């Protein structure tokens, strides 16, 4: 187990090598891939679906699906892109189902959101505006920001998470979402503006 005792150690292996080893049945390589990407996948899913239990389950499903079909991976796109594509698709499907089943509780969610917003405004009452890094490092405030992200329409939310949190390039986002780059840029700009409207009372 010393082979991948630390997360940073796994980063020293390039994806294609690990994938080839996985395809030959190397379980250690499979563990390396999981450890390498589990936090990023989990966080991305969490920001999109806004629920820790769901995010954990969807992260597990993502890796199971990818690793069970690793033999079919031909390398046309990067493993990283493929993994995120599976994760995002599973998450979006899950969110659509959840939206259908929880539509009746939207009012309650909105009420909760308004309370979060007011709380954030009161906490950031400094007229010069707080330092974003400081806000982000405060767990409660960060959670409020994440909650605000959760209020964005799903298509905009996904692009925003992949770009501004996961810091993917436009090209990668386009690959993951199987969209044109122009569509990605358009959605991203709209998502940023919508989030700004939500955060404006806090950040100005």
């Amino acid at each position, binding site marked *: 187990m010393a082979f991948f005792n630390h997360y940073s150690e796994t980063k020293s292996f390039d994806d294609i090598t690990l994938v080839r080893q996985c395809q030959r049945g190397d379980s250690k390589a499979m563990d390396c891939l999981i450890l390498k990407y*589990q936090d990023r996948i989990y966080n991305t899913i969490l920001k999109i679906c806004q629920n820790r239990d769901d995010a954990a389950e969807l992260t597990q499903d993502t890796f199971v699906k990818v690793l069970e079909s690793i033999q079919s991976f031909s390398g046309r796109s990067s493993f990283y892109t493929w993994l995120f594509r599976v994760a995002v698709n599973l998450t979006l499907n899950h969110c659509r189902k959840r939206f259908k089943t929880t539509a009746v509780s939207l009012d309650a969610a909105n009420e909760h959101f308004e309370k979060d917003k007011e709380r954030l405004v009161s906490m950031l009452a400094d007229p010069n505006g707080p330092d*974003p890094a400081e806000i982000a490092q405060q767990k409660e405030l960060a959670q409020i*920001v994440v909650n605000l992200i959760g209020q964005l329409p799903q298509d905009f939310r996904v692009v925003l998470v992949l770009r501004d949190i996961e810091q993917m390039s436009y090209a990668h986002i386009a690959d993951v979402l199987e969209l044109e780059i122009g569509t990605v840029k358009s959605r991203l700009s709209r998502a940023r503006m919508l989030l700004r409207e939500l955060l404006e009372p806090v950040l100005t």
Partner: protein
Amino acid sequence: MNDTPKPEIEELLSALIDEDASERQKTEFKRLLQHEPALADQLAALRHQKQLLNALPIEPAPESLLADIKAAMERNLILGDYRESSRSVMGAGNLLLRRILTVAAMLLLPLGLLGVVVFEILKPPAEISSYVPAKQTLADEHTASSLPSVPAAPTPPFEGFLVFKTSQPMAVGNFIEKKVFDIGLIRFMVPNRIDDTMTYQITAPAEKIAELVDALQPVWPRCEQVILNVYNSANKQTIEIPNVQPEQISTLAREDSPELLARLAVRYASANLKRDDSYAGRPAGIENQLSDNIYPELNPPILTGRYAPNQTTPVLEQPVKLHISVKRNAE
């Protein structure tokens, strides 16, 4: 002033904070800034926002995630989820096929029932059955009064009930069966046996019946009594011919006119009653001593050309019926 920028300005600001703007876009932004200074604040706010999102802390995945993933994969492997998922396609195909068959069955079943109903309505009327319980039929076969009063339609020109009464019923029965087989009438024969009576119902062309009767000549000496009941379709009665001879049966079988058949039968019956020297009951082996012409020749007018001795016998298309019974002679 409207705080919400136009989509193209949104994209321009977005490109600027991503440092993805082209020189032309940067020039355009500077130009816009001169007319709308508030865009600088919007750009700053968006940069602020991006920094905030970039700085959001990374939450570690659950510690058990690796173990959970491996457990799930192992579970899938054991439970055959792979095969299950591949089978689901086949299952969907089978389900589709079953649904199609179900729909087809639902459509065909009422159609089939409807067809039966229509057939029952439109089919031609069934022939009047002369069915009489077999035992009763066999028991009454030798009596004229109890013969079927309503024969099956169409009535065959000749329908006779030949009864051999013998003390050797098994030997006679076996001989008849052998001859029926030899002549090729086995497929026209319906045999039956009740108690001591063997019956053979044969429906065949008259020539074949005549051939059979001719072949049965050796039976006569082994019988104490040979009786032929001829069904008369004109008055629906039978005419009993005692001590009937093979040639007489052949002649009657070939006759296709019911009136002439009846007259001929009456004549044979009358003639046979007057004679007591028929060779039925005589010891076997002496039959060849009997003369063929001991029975009266029929007058040609009676036969009206249908049959005359030494002439080629016309072949009748319509089959005739001969019921042969072999009974143990109780006397």
